[in-house]
């Protein structure tokens, strides 16, 4: 794998890793919380980018794997006091197996039909889990605080979870890069552009798509395991939140569809804008007090519309188009 030595990969990893390590060094808990969320969104966006940005299959309900990973891991930790790392890996592998089983039939659907099916799968899973008693039904599950004892108490567990998300985020970025630069990745891009032509050129689309879908399931499942471990509580509406699923696609679009850096930039910018809007003071229009915190959805929507209409390629894509020479470096 000579791509492992690609300097561009190491620059991205060093930048992301370098920023991530700051709260660990300074012990800044509020920065840690901000970065946890950003890194988690980077994982979600970069992962959905593999099936959607590289392969061209719009996985609207990709959050289903985040939720499944979270539930599998949570269940093991709660009931069998399984070590977190093992529980998270089981969650990741479990979600990947589900991705294969779902992917084989569903990836035969094309375009809007596939997008709709992924929404249906997520909603079916959400409503099913809400009825599934071993997972706590609609109330969900919450930890005994003794679960955290193995990690040096609840406070240390937060740092442990943060270390975890840094590792998962870096792994996701590396995987996203290596896939894009591999022969397998070239096959995915060919499928995105024209599946039938790709098939004639010697690519087995069914197989390639399922593998891509599995990748886009594995990392979000790990992120889900971490997120709900950190929260100590998991419930269906949070685990299988369709809005968050769509937001991940918005981030991909914002940063640059099908690029490696795009989802990272998109996730960061999107999270920062939302955070800014939520904390901004309210304004009064026609005697009605309008909080930005309430308007943040509307403003996010407005920004998204502008991007979709005018900067279709996203920020990184725009750079690549505007300055073709950057194409060689900006993957």
């Amino acid at each position: 794998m000579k791509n492992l030595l690609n300097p561009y990969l190491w620059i991205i990893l060093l930048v992301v890793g370098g920023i991530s390590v700051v709260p660990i060094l300074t012990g800044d808990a509020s920065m840690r919380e901000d970065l946890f969320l950003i890194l988690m969104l980077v994982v979600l966006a970069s992962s959905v980018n593999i099936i959607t940005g590289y392969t061209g299959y719009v996985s609207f309900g990709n959050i289903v794997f985040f939720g499944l990973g979270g539930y599998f891991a949570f269940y093991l930790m709660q009931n069998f006091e399984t070590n977190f790392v093992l529980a998270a890996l089981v969650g990741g592998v479990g979600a990947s197996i589900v991705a294969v089983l779902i992917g084989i039939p569903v990836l035969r659907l094309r375009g809007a039909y596939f997008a709709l099916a992924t929404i249906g799968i997520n909603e079916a899973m959400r409503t099913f889990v809400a009825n599934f008693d071993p997972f706590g039904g609609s109330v969900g599950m919450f930890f005994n605080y003794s679960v955290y004892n193995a990690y040096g108490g609840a406070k240390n567990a937060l740092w442990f979870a943060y270390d975890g998300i840094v590792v998962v985020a870096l792994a996701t970025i590396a995987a996203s890069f290596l896939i894009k630069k591999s022969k397998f990745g070239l096959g995915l891009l060919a499928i995105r552009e024209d599946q039938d032509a790709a098939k004639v050129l010697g690519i087995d689309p069914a197989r390639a798509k399922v593998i891509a879908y599995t990748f886009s399931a594995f990392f979000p499942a790990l992120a889900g395991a971490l997120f709900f471990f950190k929260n100590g509580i998991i419930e269906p509406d949070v685990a299988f939140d369709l809005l968050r699923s769509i937001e991940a696609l918005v981030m991909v679009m914002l940063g640059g569809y099908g690029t490696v850096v795009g989802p990272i930039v998109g996730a960061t910018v999107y999270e920062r804008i939302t955070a800014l809007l939520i904390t901004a003071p309210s304004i009064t229009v026609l005697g009605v007090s309008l909080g930005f915190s309430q308007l943040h959805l509307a403003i996010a929507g407005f920004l998204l519309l502008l991007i979709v209409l005018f900067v279709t390629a996203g920020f990184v894509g725009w750079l690549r188009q505007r300055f073709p020479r950057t194409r060689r470096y900006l993957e």
Partner: protein
Amino acid sequence: MNLAVLVSSSIDGLMLGFIYGLAAMGLTLIFGVMRVINLAHGAVITLGMFALYLFSVQLGLNPYLALVLTLFLGLAFGVVMYFISVHRVINAPELTTLLATFSVDLIIVGVGTAIFTTSPFSVNVDLGTYGSGEITVLGTKIVAVLAAILITVALYYFLYRTRIGKSIRAVANNRSAAELMGINTTAMLALSFGLGTMLAMISGGLIATLFTFTILTGDDYQTKSFVIVVIGGLGNPTGALVGGILLGLLEGIATLFMQPSWVPVIEYVAFVLILLLRPNGLFGARA
């Protein structure tokens, strides 16, 4: 089980089904004509509810006059929404149109939440109850069903008997061929989007005469519309109406036999299975 309860639940479900169907027809019409899945569908349904609330409660108009106003507002809003958010990306890949319409959803829900918060609203319309014994039906429901049927008939008359309606169907069949035949496709696309939006808004208005609602209620009807549209076949208005009635009946009757919380599980599983096995809908040609 009591037969009267079964009959009463079936009637209830059937009547609700007409309104579900009406909403879903809006979604399927837009998809059928331009292959766009309108993710602002639920928000537009909500808009219909609040339009009715504003016209009837705030301005004090008769609720059914308010419904007529809502109808025209829906048409106008749809045309405007088409030109703002869809026209520029009409030929782009699915993700683009999905996100373009989703952004409109965010804007409507965001502004709506800022103004109306997420607390419940209602429009009180009392037309009495009809029937006897255990089988009674609200007058408002009867009117809602009649309105749904009337609008459906009018829509079919428009699509199949008028020149403009035929043009819309030509555009749906083959946009470039329609263009060559001298049809103003942009106008037809905008009009279809307007009609689809109108159907969604008017169904929102009808729902508002029956139940309380919040700014987020439309989302439930959006997912129901997806299920219905898939049952009936994407792009098939008749299928949407039949699908709506089936779903309404299922919801009405299923709750007698199982926990209500299991009903959506069945709906969504059926949704995915139909997409996989009968992508043209239960009544469409086999895949």
